């Protein structure tokens, strides 16, 4: 019984310690960010390409089908209330406020986050990070910060693309296949979507971008430098990002309402 309580206590302290270390890590990355942006923009651009441009295919395909299924479900359920014309409003609000940021963040964690943490973890396992330190090059600055910034820049753009493609998918399903009136589709959407809704979506995408890229970089940097450790870090990236994104999404929505 006493060992149980002690274990629990130790775990709790360990959790709080990790959380605090994570905050400090965030500050450390942020403090190097301006130097990297103005000093070595090429490195950041390379990472925007890796995190953003290379994720485009998965984002666009998923966005299209998410929008399409929203159109299908929205149409068949709204049709029961003779409100099938509102399907445009439903799809747009759902995509802009919730599904766009959240699903993009989850896909981003799976596509770009895992790539980041396994890359950094492998660099650590093969002593590349130690080698940099030996040459008086800060690995946080040279390796982690550009990857973090690349993710932060790429994420809001990916969310915007996801949402647009989603609307396009919903348009094809609702207007072209289910023959909802095209004017009603767009007019209902424009009547119900406000600038605030878009701001909420953009805010969420920024927050998720920061969280997803920081977690990926953090997990890679703290990976146990073995083959197994890198694999575990990659898994943890996806799991922890998914949990944090969904919790944060709830919190932001609750605050914004």
């Amino acid at each position, binding site marked *: 019984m006493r060992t149980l309580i002690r274990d629990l206590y130790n775990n709790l302290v360990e959790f709080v310690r990790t959380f605090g270390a994570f905050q400090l890590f965030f500050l450390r990355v942020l403090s190097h960010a301006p130097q990297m942006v103005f000093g070595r923009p*090429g490195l950041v*651009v*390379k990472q*925007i*390409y890796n995190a*953003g*441009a290379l994720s*485009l295919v998965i984002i666009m395909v998923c966005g299209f089908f998410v929008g399409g299924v929203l159109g299908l479900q929205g149409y068949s359920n709204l049709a029961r209330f003779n*409100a099938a014309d*509102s399907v445009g409003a439903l799809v*747009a609000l759902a995509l*802009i406020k919730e599904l766009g940021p959240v699903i993009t963040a989850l896909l981003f964690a799976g596509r770009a986050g895992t790539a980041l943490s396994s890359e950094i973890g492998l660099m650590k396992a093969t002593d590349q990070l130690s080698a940099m330190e030996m040459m008086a090059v800060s690995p946080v600055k040279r390796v982690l910060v550009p990857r973090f910034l690349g993710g932060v*820049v*790429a994420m*809001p*753009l*990916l969310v*915007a*693309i996801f*949402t*647009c493609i989603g*609307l396009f998918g919903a348009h094809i399903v609702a207007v072209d296949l289910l023959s909802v009136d095209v004017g009603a589709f*767009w*007019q209902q*959407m*424009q*009547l119900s*979507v*406000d*600038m605030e*809704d*878009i701001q909420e*979506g*953009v805010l969420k995408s920024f927050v998720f971008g920061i969280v997803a890229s920081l977690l990926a970089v953090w997990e890679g940097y703290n990976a146990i430098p073995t083959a197994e450790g890198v694999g575990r870090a990659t898994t943890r990236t996806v799991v922890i990002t998914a949990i944090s994104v969904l919790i944060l999404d709830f919190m932001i929505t609750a605050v914004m309402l």
Partner: protein
Amino acid sequence: MQQTRAVEIGTGLFVLLGMSALFFLTTQTTGGEKFSADETFEVQANFDNVGSLKPRAPVSMSGVTIGRVTDVSFDPVALQAKVMMIIDSRYEQIPDDSDASILTAGLLGSQYIGLQAGGSDTYLENGSEIYFTQSAIVLENLIGKFLVNSGSGGDE
């Protein structure tokens, strides 16, 4: 060199695509009737019932948006809802005996204020009040009236 060039082009395309997507979202999916005017004047109107009228709702005349609602509050003296609205100064020749009614855009749409021109020679100006108003139609009242009417109709 060729490698970097490809990366740069890819990044540029990606950022442009993202920006245009964001631009599309902000311009195409929002706001049916945007109202913006450099100079406006403020008009007040009291209603018995404003329904679900909200600030920023459009004020329209003959279907054209000429202003928007700035404030909806309760007037404790008149025991009525007080609606403040601003109207574009370009439309300064609206007769001051025009009447304002609260209408609904579509069956389930949002509510807005519709102005119907009167015949007076004096015009609405900053601070004037619209005296002829018609309340929002409350669905429950309408159903209530319908039930009462059909009930009395059955007696005859």
